[in-house]
């Protein structure tokens, strides 16, 4: 045993303590924390998939599903040769002549959008489902053909100019929505899961047992988030521009600022959601409960305007609505930052409130 070993006087050890040496930039605590955060994210293949591959796959899938196609030919059915003949004038209709019960069956099962029958006294009967847009369109086209066959002459001559330019298609609407959704998802998951996991593993407790300045820990998350943000936004926008020619009409700097503020607001929300939870299950339940309403209501896939007017103020106050509205206004309408002030104010408010609350509630253990 070491009772016999000479124990150097602790005073001598204390005297040995030199003034702190200058450390290289890379060995600064904040830099190390940020690098470590960044490394941990990059080494998590699942996280990388959700952040980078998922939005691209989603955009590609939806872009293909909703691509602009030449107007579709609608299928309709008749039971008399005379009607068939007159309806065939219309190029956008595919007319099928059937026996009566087969025609009824075809309409009922949706194989045809419209059934045209001869009524009494030379009138024509249209049978269709008026809640089905295809049915309504088919009826208009069929009626035009029937009337023109009967000798109607349109009093006004018309000309058509077709518009299929980038900026007004569904994919143009979708890409900013996906970008907003991605900003929210990666910030909240990135923040929430890692903080809760570190708390569960008592790593947070271990860190505060060192001289690490506590704000550095949170700042490192912010900095690594910003680094990831550049890649995330770049990939989604680049993909949209390259494959679908989705435009960015506003200033890129403004767009970057919107993304930055949005990501910070969502990170603060993620931090708030993760401030107490001790298990991943509890945290993910909380995060999904917060994100799900926004996925639905904030206009990722369809316009938030479709919801009733009563709830519009509520929807507009959601951070994801603000982020997506701002992104769309910048990218599609070329709106300036000044015009985006209301959305930026909403995001700023979320950032402030969530961050202050999170700091108050945050548990290191």
């Amino acid at each position, binding site marked *: 045993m070491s009772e016999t070993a000479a124990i*150097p006087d602790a005073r001598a050890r204390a005297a040995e303590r030199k003034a702190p040496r200058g450390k290289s930039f890379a060995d600064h605590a904040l830099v*190390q*924390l940020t690098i470590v955060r960044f490394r941990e994210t990059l080494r998590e293949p699942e996280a990388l998939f959700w952040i980078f591959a998922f939005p691209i796959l989603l955009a590609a899938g939806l872009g293909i599903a909703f691509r602009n196609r030449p107007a579709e030919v609608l299928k309709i059915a008749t039971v008399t040769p005379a009607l068939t003949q007159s309806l065939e004038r219309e190029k956008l209709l595919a007319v099928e002549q059937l026996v009566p019960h087969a025609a009824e069956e075809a309409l009922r099962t949706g194989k045809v959008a419209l059934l045209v029958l001869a009524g009494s006294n030379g009138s024509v009967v249209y049978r269709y489902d008026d809640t089905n847009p295809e049915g309504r369109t088919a009826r208009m086209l069929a009626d035009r053909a029937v009337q023109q066959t009967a000798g109607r002459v349109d009093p006004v001559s018309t000309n058509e100019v077709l518009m299929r330019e980038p900026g007004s298609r569904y994919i143009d609407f979708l890409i900013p929505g996906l970008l907003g959704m991605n900003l929210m998802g990666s910030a909240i998951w990135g923040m929430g899961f890692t903080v809760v996991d570190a708390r569960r593993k*008592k790593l947070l407790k*271990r860190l505060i*047992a060192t001289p690490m300045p506590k704000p550095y820990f949170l700042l490192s998350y912010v900095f690594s988030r910003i680094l990831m943000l550049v890649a995330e936004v770049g990939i989604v926008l680049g993909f949209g521009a390259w494959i679908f020619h989705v435009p960015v009409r506003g200033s890129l700097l403004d767009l970057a600022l919107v993304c930055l503020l949005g990501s910070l607001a969502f990170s603060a929300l993620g931090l708030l959601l993760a401030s107490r939870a001790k298990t991943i299950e509890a945290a993910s339940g909380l995060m999904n409960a917060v994100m799900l309403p926004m996925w639905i209501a904030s206009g990722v896939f369809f316009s938030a305007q479709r919801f009733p007017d009563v709830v519009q103020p509520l929807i507009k106050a959601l951070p994801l609505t603000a982020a997506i509205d701002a992104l769309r206004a910048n990218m599609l309408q070329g709106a300036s930052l000044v015009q985006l002030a209301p959305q930026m104010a909403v995001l700023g408010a979320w950032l402030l409130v969530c961050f202050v609350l999170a700091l108050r509630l945050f548990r290191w253990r």
Partner: protein
Amino acid sequence: MRDPAPRAALRVTGLRKAYQDVVAVNGLDLEVCAGECFGLLGPNGAGKTTTVEICEGLTAPDSGEVELLGMHWNSDAKQLRQRLGIQLQDTQLSEKLTVFETLRLFRSFFEQGPGAAEAIALVQLEEKKNSRVGNLSGGQKQRLALACALVGDPDFLFLDEPTTGLDPQARRQLWELIEQFKSSGRTILLTTHYMDEAQRLCERVAIMDNGKQIALGSPGELIASTCAEHMVAFSAGANAPALDVPALRRIEGVRDVRSENGTVEMQVTELHLAVPALLAELARQCIPLTELSTHSATLEDVFVALTGRHLRDD
């Protein structure tokens, strides 16, 4: 001016901490001298970890004083953190990072101390320098945790159950490392429920039970003051007649006899006299022996003598 290294590196007085339904620490006084390795011993739930975490400034006590390296948590936390090395019970370090990256991170929090590579050498993990933490064995993880506690070149080292859950070989390896650091003048406070660990590493130990200190001294002193030098244990066959315990107590050199689960334990001062006498007495009582063993008394025996319970009831 504060003396940077007072004789008592840690002084705890009247410490009390209660959680909702249990009193974890109930009026504890401790004094750890500079340069010694002090062991805090006790069964699970004795209040060791709570005590250590209060000393580490991670938990606030309900009442009581902690003076550490002449400083106090409420006024000198920042300086204190720089001078402490802390190993917590079951911290899981980030599995995605390598050993080197982990230590470089921890090193960045401290103003001075060995570099990451140096710390890796201290705990003999050179081969695993670039391995992910997730791929380390239990013993290697504990050595990494120890290295994380050492990167700040601490004056005071807290080790909370450093070898719990390790296999015997890994434990011995860790003990050797801790012994090396002891000789460099650091003060160590170690908690453990392994008596052999305390006996091997600690100059002095305090035995805790139910939030209180029930014994204090060097392992040798504690053994000498509470039990005899040797322990004799035997068990009789299942069909043996009832044992006449008072007769055993009367044997010369026997200090105490305890019977538990069919095993009889006796504290004995002079083994060479007591064992033949015991055998003769058992023969007289017509009791067949199925097992007989002797060992030098340990801190475990001290704990049993003091509380009537074994340290590890698992």
